């Protein structure tokens, strides 16, 4: 593996990270300032969570910066953003967003069981994120407007009112319990599959695949126990359970950018892919003429490989191996090994082995 970024500048990562972290911190500060109505409604019980969340955002920003500096990633993001600016591309992206993140159709196509478990885990975690970040960063709070009515206020703007013991209020108070139950169901299904299918999933590891599931279950159980203690145990062990919950959540937040959970930001790039394939013109293979890819993607791949110092050109023809379809690439190597000529019908060139296990133009041919 090598680590060449898209520009050869040894301080590129440091500069970009510092800039991005600064922007994120400024945005966070002002969002807290506005959300808490100039620190008027600051929830001190969530103080520990707040610092862990800020640190999580900083680490996530650094990781995303490093990720987007990789040439293939940068190229794909740029293409995606360019395509999304057109109305056709924007509609396409919205549809894909629903199919791949909302409905998670691709997982259903892999296996119904896994889709079921993943819907529970992902939506459980995403809703928990929404509730936790909104409360911890003080974007949302509840104000008692009269003795029996709460008003939900987001960023200082009153949204709606509800009775303190109405069904809606109870559903909202227990929001994290519902998401916690979903997460426990999903994670248990995932653990069961990982244990019973052990021989099929040979690449799984305790640290990468099992620990995150156990961590999510620990967070959900300790969180739910807080409700159990408050409702049915007259608050017994509340402080200890609260501390245990805080520890598990903080471990999760700091572990998030460097773990299996990192696939969550990656999935947003998947939204770009279907339109990247569908909205561009197809390109024929240089040898057999079959359309096998879009011209834009082939150029992007060649550029990414060049930035990684891993270009694979075919001699001095201006062609790369990626200008041929997969089958023609495989066959060309073998024909070269046999000492046979390789006729690139579409490009009008004839290749032969270069004696160094690569291919070259047949002697006398011009590129």
């Amino acid at each position, binding site marked *: *593996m*090598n680590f060449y970024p898209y520009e050869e500048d040894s301080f590129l990562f440091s500069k970009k990270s510092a800039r991005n972290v600064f922007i994120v911190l400024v945005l966070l500060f002002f969002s807290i300032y506005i959300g808490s109505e100039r620190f008027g409604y600051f929830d001190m019980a969530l103080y520990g969570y707040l610092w862990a969340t800020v640190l999580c955002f900083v680490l996530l920003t650094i990781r995303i910066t490093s990720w987007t500096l*990789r040439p*293939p*990633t940068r*190229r*794909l993001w740029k293409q995606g953003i360019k395509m999304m600016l057109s109305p056709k591309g924007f509609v396409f992206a919205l549809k894909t967003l629903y199919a791949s993140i909302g409905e998670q159709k*691709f997982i259903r*196509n*892999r296996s119904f069981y896994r889709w079921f478990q993943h819907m529970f885990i992902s939506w459980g975690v995403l809703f928990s994120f929404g509730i936790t970040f909104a409360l911890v960063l003080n974007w949302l709070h509840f104000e008692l407007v009269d003795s029996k009515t709460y008003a939900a206020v987001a960023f200082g703007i009153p949204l709606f009112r509800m009775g303190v013991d109405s069904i809606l209020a109870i559903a909202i108070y227990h929001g994290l319990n519902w998401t916690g139950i979903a997460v426990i169901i999903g994670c248990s299904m995932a653990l069961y599959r990982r244990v019973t299918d052990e*021989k*099929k*999933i*040979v*690449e799984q590891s305790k640290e990468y695949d099992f620990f995150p599931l156990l961590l999510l279950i620990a967070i959900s159980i300790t969180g739910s126990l807080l409700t159990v203690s408050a409702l049915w145990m007259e608050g017994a062990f509340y402080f200890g359970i609260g501390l245990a919950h805080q520890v598990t959540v903080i471990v999760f937040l700091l572990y998030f950018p460097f773990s*299996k959970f990192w*696939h969550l930001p*990656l*999935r947003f*790039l*998947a939204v770009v*892919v279907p339109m*990247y*394939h569908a909205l561009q013109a197809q390109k024929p293979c240089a040898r057999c003429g079959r359309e096998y890819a879009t011209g834009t*993607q*082939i150029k*992007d*791949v060649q550029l*990414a*490989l060049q930035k*990684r*110092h*891993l*270009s*694979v*050109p*075919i*001699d*001095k023809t201006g062609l790369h*191996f*990626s200008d*041929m*379809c*997969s*089958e*023609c*690439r*495989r*066959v060309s*190597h*073998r*024909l070269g*090994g*046999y*000492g*046979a000529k390789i006729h690139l019908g579409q490009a009008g060139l004839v290749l032969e082995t*270069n004696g*160094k*296990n*690569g291919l070259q133009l047949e002697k006398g041919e011009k590129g």
Partner: protein
Amino acid sequence: MAKVLYIDYERCIGCKACVIGCEECSGHDHLSRMFVDELNPGETVATSPTPCMHCVTPACAESCPVQAIAIADDGTVLSASLEKCIGCKNCTYACPFGIPRVDDVKKMMYKCDMCYDRTSKGRPPMCASVCPTDTIRFVDEEEIKYDPPKPVQFKWDFGGTVIETRTVIGLPDTETHRFGYREGEGVQE
């Protein structure tokens, strides 16, 4: 001792046992990662199997926008991790050997992982186990690379970019046109 795949493709008879064997590997989800290509259809019956070449610096992994393709400790280049792969197909185009495939419906890339469940425990991969002509063999890396029975390929020069592969390809003898090995057993005079 590390073992690698050795492909002596002039022995291939095109039976595709390797393709079927690959499908049957427990971690392969009934998707074959092996290719058997006809080299000169209509002119000769020459065929060749191609598994992953397991490059030391794999172009597939380098071109992956989400870093989904990992390299195991023993150097095996694994299929893209299911939770990361976004199905963009960059790997299928970047690979100079034409190996990775992407399932458009399941949005996942799959390629030869040398039957990681077997090879990580010292057993030969399915393709080598079922090949009836010894075209595909699972052999000691040092021996096949530096003391081969016939000319072999494992360093490829693509216009100045040298890619080293763990999989070794045995080359037909185009100088004397003798089938088999350079000297010793199996040489047809």
